[in-house]
């Protein structure tokens, strides 16, 4: 009896069906490939509901609101963390890791990339949304990404260019490319109104040493670091491919895949597509480098974590799945299937590197991952949108950068007051 229980911790849950909500995202496409393995190993059936991540977020908002939800395990976007935890809709994972029946001793939590964990898993610590003395764990990073610089080896070799280390070099090269290669853009960045523009801006904000808020929640986007970041963005877009001003991620990546630009500075998830001949014309021509440094190295972290809804039906089983997926084994499986691993060990793993040479670089980049590259607070959505549209104006309507950012700062201040962040001072 007990013997079997030891032998197979999954026994009790054999046959239960877990309903899982994943985003439509290269990483999770990879996950889909390895899930059968889990079922085979544990006898736990899975039904996956895959949604584009914005839709996924809406769906979850609605679902988690119910007193009996559909999902047993959800993948959530980083910035949902604040809402869900705040609304008490995510299980605190403590009690599962405490449960000997469930938690696997071999699960080496230290090996998880801390930048990710802090960014995605924790809440209740510093600033309320980070790790820290008061913080605790609500989810585990899974399918998380960081920013790296992709560049066209062939082009760079052809013109004897050196892979940019700093922003100055980056911008210089970005604007030199169009002259060297007529019709080719320097660096393709997203810039479309809304969160695309905002995201692109934030990409440069930290390296430039800027931030949205100081520690007292005072908006500081409009300090000169912020302005530098915005200028960088503008330069990049101007030297970018034609019509870049309203590129979304799709077009941006598209033009890189299409060979219309020499560099691409964004998330790591694209690696898969760049090597897929049915999608890209630059297979094998792309090299990877760290996110260039401004005053400091700070690559973005983002992507998804997985957590257990408070209104889930089979929480234990869900935890088991969660644990399996993020275990060393699971992580490596995903990596091999083309997902992005969340453990240092996996990045180091030579088998993986054999298949995906860029992994090492990515692992390196992760050392500089900055969990706090943007605040994760309920009102962020609004601020983000405002930032996005304003920057879009900067890029298209030549609005003066300084005053644009001042505007953002001011409105942000308003929002924050509204939301009660200044109650204490």
């Amino acid at each position, binding site marked *: 009896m007990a013997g079997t229980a030891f032998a197979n911790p999954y026994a009790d849950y054999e046959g239960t069906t877990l309903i899982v909500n994943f985003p439509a995202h290269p990483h999770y496409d990879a996950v889909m490939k390895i899930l059968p393995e889990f079922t085979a190993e544990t006898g736990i059936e899975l039904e996956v509901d895959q949604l584009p991540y*914005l839709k996924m*977020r*809406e769906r979850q*908002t*609605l679902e*988690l*609101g119910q007193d009996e939800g559909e999902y047993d395990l959800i993948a959530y976007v980083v910035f949902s963390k604040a*809402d*869900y935890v705040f*609304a008490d*809709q995510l299980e605190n994972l403590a009690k599962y890791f405490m449960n000997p029946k469930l938690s696997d001793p071999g699960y080496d939590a230290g090996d998880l990339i801390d930048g990710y964990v802090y960014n995605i898993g924790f809440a209740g610590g510093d600033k309320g949304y980070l790790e820290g003395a008061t913080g605790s764990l609500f989810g585990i990073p899974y399918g998380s990404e960081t920013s790296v610089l992709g560049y066209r080896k062939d082009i760079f070799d052809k013109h004897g260019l050196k892979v940019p280390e700093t922003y100055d070099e980056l911008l210089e090269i970005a604007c030199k490319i169009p002259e060297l290669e007529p019709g080719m853009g320097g660096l393709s960045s997203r810039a*479309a*109104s*809304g*969160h*695309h*523009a905002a995201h692109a801006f934030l990409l440069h904000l930290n390296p430039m040493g800027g931030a949205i808020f100081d520690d007292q929640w005072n908006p500081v986007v409009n300090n000169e670091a912020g302005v530098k970041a915005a200028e960088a963005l503008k330069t990049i877009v101007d030297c970018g*491919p*034609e*019509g870049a*001003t*309203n590129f*979304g991620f799709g*077009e941006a990546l598209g*033009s890189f895949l*299409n060979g*219309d630009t020499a560099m691409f500075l964004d998330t790591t998830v694209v690696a898969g597509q760049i090597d897929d001949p049915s999608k890209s014309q630059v297979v094998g021509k792309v090299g990877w480098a760290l996110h260039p440094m401004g005053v400091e190295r700070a690559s973005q972290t983002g992507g998804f974590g997985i957590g257990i809804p408070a209104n889930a039906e089979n929480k234990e089983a869900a935890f088991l799945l969660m644990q399996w997926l993020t275990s060393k084994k699971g992580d490596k499986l995903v990596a091999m299937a083309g997902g992005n691993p969340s453990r240092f060990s996996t990045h180091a793993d030579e088998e993986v590197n054999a298949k995906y040479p860029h992994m090492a670089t990515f692992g390196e980049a992760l050392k500089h991952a900055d969990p706090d590259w943007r605040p994760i607070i*309920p009102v962020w*959505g*609004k601020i*983000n*949108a*405002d930032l996005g*549209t304003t920057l*879009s*104006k900067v*890029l*298209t*309507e030549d609005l003066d950068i300084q005053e644009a950012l001042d505007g953002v700062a001011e409105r942000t201040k308003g929002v924050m007051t509204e939301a009660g962040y200044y109650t204490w001072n």
Partner: protein
Amino acid sequence: MQRATANRLTPYMFMAPAVVIMVIALLYPLGYMVWGSFRDWDPSQTIGEAEFVGLKNYITLWHDPNFRESLGVTLSFAFFVVTFEMVIGVGLALLLDRNIRGMSVLRTLFILPMMIAPVVVGLMWRYMYHPTVGTFNRFFEAIGLPTVDWLGANALMSVIIADIWQWTPFIFILSLAALQSLPRSALEAARIDGATGWQQIIHIKLPLMMPVLIVTGLLRLIDAFKVLEVILVMTEGGPGLSTEILALRISRTATEFRELGVAAAMSNYLLILLLFITVMMFAFTRWQEMRANRLRAAVEEDE
């Protein structure tokens, strides 16, 4: 006697199913929404939990420049879209109001655009508008014209074009149907009376179609205020707010900003606006009828 009562009940029997359904599925949620517009309502709360804030949402909106801007966008979008679609649609209907071979195939061809799922339409046009690989600019280059920065500088125009492309069939079909059910004999009489094709259109066809046209235009207007997916996919409201029509802003407020109360308030503004337009429209038609009657009375006076 009881027959008489039954008689009086008939209209209600005819109305009943429609009313019931709309009350359940529209009015109730609608009330829900109106009620919500007075609360600080987060999607992860049930409306009960949300805190009551009175008119706050409305007031903040009223002073919110972004809201105003997108209101402006909405109005101009709706105006252009409806005008062009009416003109083209009715024109097309008049053009095709004859029996030639393969008519129903032709009709179907013209309705085609409407049948494609909005999301796909959005993608398609976004693709065609693409600054470099896009169909239009490629075409322009091919024939040596300067390329256009479609979704950039001319985003609104581009969006309007796309919408016209997709929704003109709506007007077309309805006016065609109207045309086909006109009394033929009146048209014959007109031809005898020496009316040219144009004059027939102006003096007979259009006046007789008017009821349909008014309603069609109205419905189209209402829908124009609700266009969402296509624009979302094409521009996401950008650049800046240049194509962020209210419907889009509403759904963003609801999902991105997670401020249901505000979203509700916003759509109530929209509702009021539309109601206003509608009522004006009816008032106008009514007024015309009254005028006609007065004239009539006058004439019958002096006989």
